[in-house]
């Protein structure tokens, strides 16, 4: 039986594509920022500057939580009924 969501998805199949691409784009952006944060934290730790370490970790944690919560919006794809 058809429902509203399924017919919507069928008439606009590119919608999920756009959502997924955007999610991946944001996740890559997050990971890039985290790599930079880790690099800075490591450099400062080796230089004995400890002030920056906890803020860098908290920022990294926030980015990770953003990434995890974005997974909620991950589309499951159109389930076509196969005969």
């Amino acid at each position, binding site marked *: 039986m058809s429902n509203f969501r399924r017919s919507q998805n069928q008439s606009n199949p590119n919608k999920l594509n756009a959502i*997924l691409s955007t999610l991946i784009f944001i996740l890559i952006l997050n990971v890039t920022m*985290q790599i930079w944060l880790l690099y800075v934290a490591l450099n400062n730790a080796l230089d004995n500057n400890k002030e920056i370490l906890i803020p860098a970790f908290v920022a990294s944690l926030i980015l990770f939580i953003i*990434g995890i919560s974005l*997974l909620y919006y991950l589309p499951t794809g159109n389930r076509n009924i196969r005969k």
Partner: protein
Amino acid sequence: MSKEDNLNKNWKKDFPIEKQQATNVSRRDFAKFLTLVSGGLMVGSGLVTAKAYLYPKEEVLGEHFVCNKDEVPLGGTRAFVIEGSTIPYILIHLETGEFKAYEQKCTHLSCSVFYKPGTGVIHCPCHEGSFDAKTGNVLAGPPPRALPKLDVFFKDDAVYVRAVQEEKIAKL
């Protein structure tokens, strides 16, 4: 059954996932994998922080005798290790007459650095890194930080080193 029919029927049976769904699945997995990487980086950042606070870098305690002044000629160097530690240091007798002591490990990838006599430059041969022999600051190349240094002082003719005093005052 014609060849065409056979192809359509069996192809569907062998590959029951439609093309669009197949791409959806792999990109979903990619998104999840990115989140996993994100978590890994977060944990790594946490470990760096924990290591820095729980196991701080050992500081040089007390005063340590290195050698006598006349044992190191002008422009010469002497490698030494402080008792109870494995970190290699070099004592440099600069052409200006000053004595300086630095860790001998390049801050880039821990190669041994050496003083180039007459230039005022400490050089790392691995990746052509250069440090200022007067301050330990990076002059050129890939090293990200200045060379860690020790304070040099004298008792009569003997050369001694100790941890840099400014840092201690700042920490108190």
